[in-house]
């Protein structure tokens, strides 16, 4: 007897699945136990046997493996066995890994699309984001009929309709049906929901809505709609248009509410809800609820809160077709970290009353993000472009204390920005600089301050303070006080705060402070870098010319090998795995694939024209064997942001009525991110940014929050625990499954499990998911109390069926494998 293994599909992993065997005799029959270690991304394992040396191998019929089989040796003691494993198609795997890493996780539609167009086309599309049409920030103001569908529990039998202030709205075809989803065939539990009959007696109008009436001019279907006319805000039965539903709804049952409303650019909000905490729908009339466009409008006009900014950021991550663009923006926001709170406190001390300090601080974060977004769309965007935006950002100037630093006269400039420019933004810790360099660079960043400028001068640091006054008639110092000046806060170069002396960066100095020669790139970098003199001497300059010190320094540092190395390693950690280190000896004979990839990135960086282009480096990384190879998938843990966004995306498909099966308003995800490891977007206190590595995020406590979030996000509206993910984070699991399986398939636990596994774990390989499949099917075919109850016995649309499949999806998304990307 002999054992063999075939390494056919493991060309890059270097390890074939080897069988280990044990022999034992059971009831007089010799039996062979075969075990093997599961391998990455395998679709099928097959045991094959040959009756003897030189004879062909044939498949052995065996049951589900669980990575082990027992075969009866029978009459053929000379048999040889081997394991064949069929891996996931290489293109499918690469495409899936791209969706996990250069996007915020796959959506079902994107999975299908990338399989169709192929990973190469997807990569090209994402790299060249400017060619992808995207209108997420554009508000569609043309009035139209818009549909809302919401599923939840029947908390009471009273339905309220009201607005949040004075205003009017049109509403039609209001339906409430039992169960999940409404294809129009179920009976409407509301009377006169199409408003075809006169409002009385089915609808009762409270005094604040007493002018409401049927309208024949704007109608979705039939002859009339409801024209709501509100004189003041409603909140309960006595301030709403309401109906008591008969027979009563059941609090333990699921219902689906749907309606159409006429969009409007008026800033009013419409609420339709059951009394109590069941089904509730509140949104503005713009028709862009859960769209980033209205938030973008607030951000542009400095009306937005920090919560608005975060919601906008999250919504773009969920929805943007330019996914890599969004991933990179978050990377930059985190790499060039600034802290909202510190900016707000700065403005708080500048004479502004709440909420202005908050809004001004949000604006600084928004502006730097907008500038990054813009330059990222340029094909030849370089690291230097991105670095410069950060250096000029008022948020950064405040965050690392440049704003108060001065180097004129006897003043010693603040070292904070200089240190982090070396350590965190460009070179990496202890990489090519020392304390003397920090001191020299700190002198460069003297005079980089802020001023209230005319909007046209926002990016002109030489412009004078705005003299556009709110009230020009004010006298004395009040005239020029911040609150009396119309303008924007921008970078202002103050010649009288700058250290005008010559500066010598990256030089060697002796113990007496005498300057020796320039520093040389260490030997470990090898050719073409090793031995280069990378010193920079800046001449003494005064007046506006002194500002050039900063720009020369940025230009100089952006493309040094230290920066190339540090940023390449960070990008590899972002896109490949956490195990890339700083400080490789690139001349050492002993290299690892990680070291080689970093070296390739640096070479591409060095040789692109102009130097330091981002896109070739990104392509180098995602085309590498480490990224594409068979073992390359699922080597990273999702950050809280990635986890939350990928949760929504994983089950988000477009439905036929224009809505999506999974939605978030963006706001609901923040509490989770904060709880699951204090990921407070735009407001990190420490300058090193949020970690990429798993150890920084995963503990029992943070896992508890992740699992709570999954359950909460997948709950129907109104269930206790829904607050965790926010009532406006909604996932309609049935809708997703229906779109993939049709009405028959969603009663079949095996097909439901298969579909969920394919959507949630597309890179794992079917054969590796057998155990999850079994757990999911058991879950689907069992009641809460554990008795057997096949899914096929439940009525589609019933509460029991709905909760069974929501629970199964939540179960699979709560597993270890869903933490990975």
């Amino acid at each position, binding site marked *: 007897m002999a054992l063999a293994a075939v390494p056919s599909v493991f060309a890059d992993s270097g390890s074939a699945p080897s069988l280990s065997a044990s022999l034992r005799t059971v009831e007089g029959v010799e039996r062979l136990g075969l075990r093997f*270690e*599961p391998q*990455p991304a395998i679709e099928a394992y097959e045991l094959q046997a040959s009756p003897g040396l030189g004879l062909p191998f044939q498949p052995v019929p065996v049951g589900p493996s669980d*990575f082990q089989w027992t075969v009866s040796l029978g009459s053929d003691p000379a048999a040889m066995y081997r394991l064949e494993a069929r891996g996931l198609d290489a293109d499918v795997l690469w495409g899936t890994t791209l969706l996990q890493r250069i996007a915020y996780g796959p959506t079902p539609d994107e999975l299908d699309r990338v399989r169709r167009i192929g990973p190469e086309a997807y990569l090209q599309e994402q790299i060249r984001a400017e060619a992808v049409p995207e209108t997420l920030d554009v508000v569609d103001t043309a009035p139209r009929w818009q549909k809302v569908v919401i599923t939840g529990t029947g908390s009471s039998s009273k339905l309220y309709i009201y607005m949040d202030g004075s205003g009017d709205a049109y509403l039609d075809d209001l339906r409430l049906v039992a169960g999940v989803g409404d294809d129009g065939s179920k009976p409407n539990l509301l009377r006169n929901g199409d408003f075809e009959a006169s409002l009385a007696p089915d609808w009762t109008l409270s005094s604040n809505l007493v002018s409401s009436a049927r309208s024949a001019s704007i109608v979705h279907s039939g002859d009339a709609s409801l024209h709501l006319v509100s004189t003041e805000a409603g909140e309960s039965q006595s301030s709403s248009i309401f109906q008591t539903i008969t027979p009563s709804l059941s609090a333990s049952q699921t219902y689906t509410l749907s309606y159409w409303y006429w969009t409007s650019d008026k800033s009013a909000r419409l609420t339709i809800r059951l009394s109590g905490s069941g089904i509730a729908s509140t949104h503005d009339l713009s028709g862009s609820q859960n769209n980033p466009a209205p938030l973008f409008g607030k951000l542009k006009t400095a009306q937005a809160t920090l919560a608005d900014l975060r919601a906008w950021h999250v919504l773009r991550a969920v929805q943007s077709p330019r996914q890599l663009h969004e991933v990179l923006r978050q990377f930059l926001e985190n790499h060039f970290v600034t802290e909202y709170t510190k900016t707000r406190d700065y403005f708080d001390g500048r004479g502004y009353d709440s909420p202005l300090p908050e809004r001004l601080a949000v604006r600084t974060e928004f502006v730097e993000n907008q500038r990054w977004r813009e330059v990222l769309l340029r094909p030849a965007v370089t690291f230097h472009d991105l670095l410069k935006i950060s250096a000029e950002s008022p948020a950064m100037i405040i965050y690392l*204390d440049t704003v108060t630093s001065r180097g004129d006269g006897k003043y010693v400039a603040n*070292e*904070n920005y200089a*240190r982090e420019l070396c*350590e965190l933004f460009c070179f990496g810790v202890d990489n090519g600089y020392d304390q003397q360099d920090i001191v020299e660079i700190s002198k460069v960043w003297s005079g980089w301050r802020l001023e209230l400028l005319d909007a046209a001068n926002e990016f002109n640091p030489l412009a004078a303070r705005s003299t556009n006054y709110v009230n020009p008639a004010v006298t004395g110092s009040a005239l020029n006080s911040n609150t009396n000046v119309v303008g924007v806060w921008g970078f202002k170069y103050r010649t009288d705060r700058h250290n005008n002396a010559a500066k010598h960066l990256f030089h060697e100095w002796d113990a007496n402070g005498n300057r020796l020669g320039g520093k040389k790139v260490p030997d470990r970098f090898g050719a073409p870098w090793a031995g280069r003199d990378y010193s920079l001497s800046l001449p003494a300059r005064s007046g506006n010319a002194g500002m050039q010190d900063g720009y020369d320094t940025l230009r100089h540092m952006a493309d040094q090998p230290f920066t190339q190395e540090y940023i390449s390693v960070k990008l590899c950690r972002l896109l490949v*795995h956490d195990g890339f*280190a700083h*400080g*490789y000896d690139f001349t*050492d004979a*002993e290299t*690892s694939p990680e070291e080689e990839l970093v070296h390739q990135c640096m070479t591409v960086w060095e040789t692109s024209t102009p130097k330091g282009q981002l896109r070739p480096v990104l392509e180098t990384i995602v085309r590498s064997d480490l990224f594409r190879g068979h*073992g390359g998938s699922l080597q*990273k*843990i999702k950050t809280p942001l990635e986890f939350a966004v990928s949760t929504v995306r994983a089950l988000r498909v477009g439905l036929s009525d224009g809505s999506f099966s999974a939605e978030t308003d963006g706001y609901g995800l923040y509490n989770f991110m*904060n709880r699951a490891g*204090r990921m407070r977007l735009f407001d990190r*206190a*420490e300058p*090193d940014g949020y*970690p990429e*590595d*798993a*150890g920084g*995020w*995963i*503990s*029992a*406590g943070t*896992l508890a929050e992740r*699992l709570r979030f999954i*359950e*909460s996000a997948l*709950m*129907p509206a109104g*269930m206790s625990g829904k607050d965790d993910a926010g009532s406006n984070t909604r996932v309609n699991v049935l809708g997703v499954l229906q779109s993939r399986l049709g009405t028959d398939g969603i009663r079949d636990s095996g097909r439901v499990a298969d579909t969920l596994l394919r959507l949630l774990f597309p890179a*794992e390989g079917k054969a*590796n998911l057998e*155990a*999850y499949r079994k*757990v999911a099917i*058991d*879950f689907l075919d069992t009641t*809460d*109390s*554990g008795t057997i109850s096949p899914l096929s016995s439940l009525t589609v649309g019933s509460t029991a069926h709905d*909760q069974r499949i*929501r*629970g199964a999806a*939540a179960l*699979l998304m*709560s597993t*270890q*494998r869903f*933490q*990975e990307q």
Partner: protein
Amino acid sequence: MNILTRRSFLSHATRLGLGAAMASLTDVPLVLQRALAEGSIGRPGLNGRVRKLLFLFLRGANDGLNTVIPVGDPAYYSSRPNLAIPDDPLQPASRIGTAIFPESGNASGIYAHPYSLSLGNGFAGLHPSLKFLSPVYNAGDLALIHRVGYPRQSRSHFDSQAYWETGAPSGSGTKDGLLYRAMLESGLANTSPLTGVTVGTSLPMILRGSKAAMMNIGDPTRYGLLSIPNTAAAKAKMSAALESADRARFAGKRDRELLELQYRNLSGTLDLFADLKFAEADNTFRDDVATDGDTDWANANGGGYFLFPTNNDKNGGWKRTSGNRADKYVVPTSSYDYFTRLKTASILLNDTDAIVSGVSIDGWDTHSNQVDDKNTAAGLGAHTGSHAGLLRRVGWTMYALQKHFTKYSNKCHWDDLVVVTLSEFGRTSIENSDGGTDHAEASVMMVAGGGVRGFEPDALGGVRRTGVWNCGGDGDRVVPWMTGPTGSMFRASGRYLQRNTDYRSVLGKLIRDHLGATQPQLDRIIPGYSSPEDSLASKGVQSRDNTTVIGEPEVV
């Protein structure tokens, strides 16, 4: 399998050019971290128990001069006409002996005593709102360390808290927390479900870092899973299914070992937390004696006050058969949230393997109206007000913890615990015109625990060893308290109390000699600990601002 030793691993790492990156234990495979860790942080001692630490962060900067009061310094009284606490004419601070504990009995209010409480070292007195420190002090379980700070003190709350929490000046490149690094050195940070855990709104910087996720618990009852529907039966079904799924085998990947460990920890702590008594109904912890001599309060039943005052009924002797009495509140009624958090932290230390826990008390930034009634003749109203209320929380905390970890000890005994207070700086020696004090430099640190080397009497009723450092008599240890208008209270910049102890020496002493770090570990936990110019380990001059310090105080 090859056995990987620390040495062979590090030598391999060095060969790959990872020398610097590999200095920390976090790059070692998880299962080996514990085996390769030096020292004994988190390791059970001979008694089978792990030594633990609880920190109380007094955020906002505590007025050390009105905490442990230099009664023997006339400049204290001349600088603070409205805030100064008068010396007790009957038990003056000049006496030698135990600390004064003015028991109230049944009749008078708990905090009626308007005088400072002599600490028996001939010089210093406690603020009377700290009266419950006296029994802890007299048991030898409390060290009061005055004049604590660090070189080139920042007077910004933000910068200074960051310094205390990271163990290094802001902008120095140290970005993670001091106690976080101590937890990394234990080798348990990525494998044990709980190593460092705070109770509050968010994880403080002192436990933050990017190599291991420490835990903050806002509401311990949140530490449970949800299910669809959110019922007990559905939760049980969900948990069972998840555990089955967790047993599935998969191909090896980078983070799968960590995930598997932490999922196991999660399921372990879920069970654990389900058994812990976090609910208010289970808050039945009581003093073992008639507290403060009060024998007739309504809930007496032969025992003393509730240890964790979380509502009026559990707040000292308020609830009485004869009607309620506000002067029998042991802590202000605004402190119930804090004591709920303290209770949670105590339960975590006592009933789980957590090594470090902490809670914050906010509100110490007493720029104005530090006392209620500043115009009382002879300053006899100075013992009440906002600062007094904060001190009552601290005094009762130490008393309650001593009782709790003695009477209710499970995994942690008072003898294995150190409680330490942190506060970013002290306040101006001279009171301001608003009846408050502004940002200054040195302040007071308290260290309590069964193993603390505090007060010890001699056979004749005198003092063999005092529990006061740096404030009078033997307590001055190395740098005596200079009295008068140019004395210690004004030695820093001519305005502020000058430090003679670095807070890092106190924490270093505790981390090494209590928690069990080795000296090399301590050098990693507190950067530059052994460097001579900082004089953290032993007496010397701190070169950054040329100030003499005592090095490590022998508090444990």
